[in-house]
């Protein structure tokens, strides 16, 4: 019983970085922009956030620095893809490659440094409830922040005028432009928000989850987050659920090892990647289903007519 509670808790902790990044990417994809630079933005933010937290001793300064770094990296992408009309796929890929190199370069001095472990405080009152306490209410605050962001995003997309405008920009930038909305500016804001959330996700990984910096520590989570938006058919709630599902898969390997399952650790570590492929296959089998749900202008360059 107690072990199950711990497994649930670990799943939430492992799913949170995927949820944060996935929700961020969802914002810019809803506006019609696909940013394959997630992995790079997260890497840059992870090292920036770690450095900030290391020098100030404050995790929240670290998160803020991570968000700023992610947004700055996204700004480069946005400027190229939205104002210079570069191919979104190639540009995002370039950002991922750059981020990997840049973070390794900047982070050389931080390898092996340790942050002070901040003990999970949890929610007073609820944290001592049997089973539910250890399972749900002793998490790092960022876990609850991710849930709040999901709720806020769902409300924003479907209940506000601004959300409607954002979605219309993603569905038909030409119509939005004809109605007088500044398509590129709206998309840029969405790209920046996406970068900032990917940044928080990267900082969470290096400050809380690991907690350390090492080259390549994002380990494909940016790409899995990109896949998540597809699995979730671009809905915020499903992104969160999908993230927890993948968090669970990540945790499953440790659980199986504890249960004495004789499988080499490398094969266990393959699980998140293999399940990403598996779920992609499941969800993509019906092209119509994807086409109905995908923002219609996703990945296409928009040229404001003049």
């Amino acid at each position: 019983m107690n072990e199950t509670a711990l497994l649930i808790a670990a799943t939430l902790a492992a799913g949170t970085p995927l949820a944060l990044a996935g929700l961020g990417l969802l914002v810019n994809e809803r506006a019609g922009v696909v940013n394959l630079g997630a992995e790079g933005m997260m890497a840059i933010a992870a090292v920036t956030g770690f450095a900030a937290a290391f020098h100030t001793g404050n995790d929240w300064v670290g998160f803020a620095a991570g968000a700023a770094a992610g947004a700055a990296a996204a700004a480069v992408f946005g400027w190229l893809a939205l104002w210079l009309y570069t191919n979104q796929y190639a540009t995002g890929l370039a950002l991922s490659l750059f981020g990997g190199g840049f973070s390794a370069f900047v982070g050389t001095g931080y390898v092996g440094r340790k942050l002070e472990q901040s003990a999970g405080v949890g929610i007073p009152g609820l944290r001592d409830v049997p089973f539910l306490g250890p399972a749900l209410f002793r998490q790092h605050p960022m876990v609850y922040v991710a849930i709040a962001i999901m709720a806020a995003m769902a409300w924003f997309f479907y209940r506000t005028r601004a959300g409607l405008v954002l979605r219309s920009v993603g569905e038909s930038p030409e119509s939005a432009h004809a109605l007088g909305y500044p398509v590129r500016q709206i998309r840029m804001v969405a790209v920046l928000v996406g970068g900032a959330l990917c940044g928080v996700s990267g900082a969470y990984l290096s400050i809380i989850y690991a907690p350390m910096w090492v080259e390549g520590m994002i380990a494909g989570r940016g790409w899995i987050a990109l896949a998540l938006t597809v699995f979730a058919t671009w809905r915020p709630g499903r992104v969160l659920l999908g993230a927890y599902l993948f968090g669970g898969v990540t945790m499953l390997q440790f659980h199986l090892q504890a249960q004495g399952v004789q499988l080499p650790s490398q094969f266990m570590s393959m699980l998140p990647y293999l399940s990403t492929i598996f779920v992609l296959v499941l969800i993509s089998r019906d092209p119509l289903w994807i086409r109905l749900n995908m923002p219609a202008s996703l990945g296409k360059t928009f040229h404001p007519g003049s």
Partner: protein
Amino acid sequence: MIRLEGRLAPSRLWSVLSPVVAMAITVAVAASLFALLGKDPVRGLEVFLLKPWSGTRALTELGLKATPLILCALGLGLAFRANVWNIGAEGQFLIGGILGGGLALVITENQVPVDRWLFLPMLVVAGAVGGMLWAGIAAFLKDRFNANEILVSLMLVYVADLFLSWLVFGPWKDPKGFNFPQTMNFAAQTGVPRLVTGMRLHWGFILALVAAVAMWAFMFRTYKGMQLMVGGPAPAAARYAGFSSRWALWVTFLISGGLAGVAGALEVAGPMGQLTPHVSQGYGFAAIIVAFVGRLHPLGAVLASLILATFSIGGELAQSRLGLPAAITGVFQGVLLLSLLACDTLINYRPRWSPR
């Protein structure tokens, strides 16, 4: 305010000039970065860009580094032109290396007497089969289930990496290797024949150049190659002409995967001589940059490979001589690709000054 105005036809001038300008931007960024880090920029650039080109030994090392880049980038250039996004060359490289290394291991363990020149074609075939197998998974899942090939080929990189790690930590570990995660050293007869005595440069470099010429002939001198080229920029026209996009998917994935696999096998049997967890130094990803900088053209890929190889060796030299982290290579690679994409805008657009 500067406004971009579409050109009626793509500018041939800028298509050639763009990589040159991007390179200039990268050099400027490099010089600034050296200065920022308190190093003499002139000395920094000398170590980073010129030293890899001075002397016979340096030149052969350059060719050695360029070999896997050329092979991987040739296939990627073809795939990207056909609008097929194979991002997983790194994984295909690793599986090719595993199969090639496995073959060398079998020969070593059983002390099979085989001539180096006889082993070379076997090695190439093993590498190609490995790379094609791995690329074939992504092609199959795209073809059969419409699964996004970018994400699938990329996820397979991590799987290949873990698989290699399992092999060298587990069943293929050298029993006399002091528990290091590596296979035993391959027998001498499995080595790739050297090109220059005393240097590590091997015949794989010549093979890569031959492959580049063959790729050029395929792309621009055959009907099948032309079909692929049309499918990228004008899928609707290609469909109308009856060119199959499924065919393009399979052919480009298998060719690019096969070439990456060959690169992996040559690297393992050539300079490495054993399998370790670190078979690739990111060749498959660097090759993406090579492909774009080389204008998705086979001969451009050769030139761009030499540039990226310079960066890579320059990074190592910057570490040993200037005390900078070798990871600086990755920064310059990224800057090069980002500035190239920015400069490429000028191929299709003309900047216009409009008072507003």
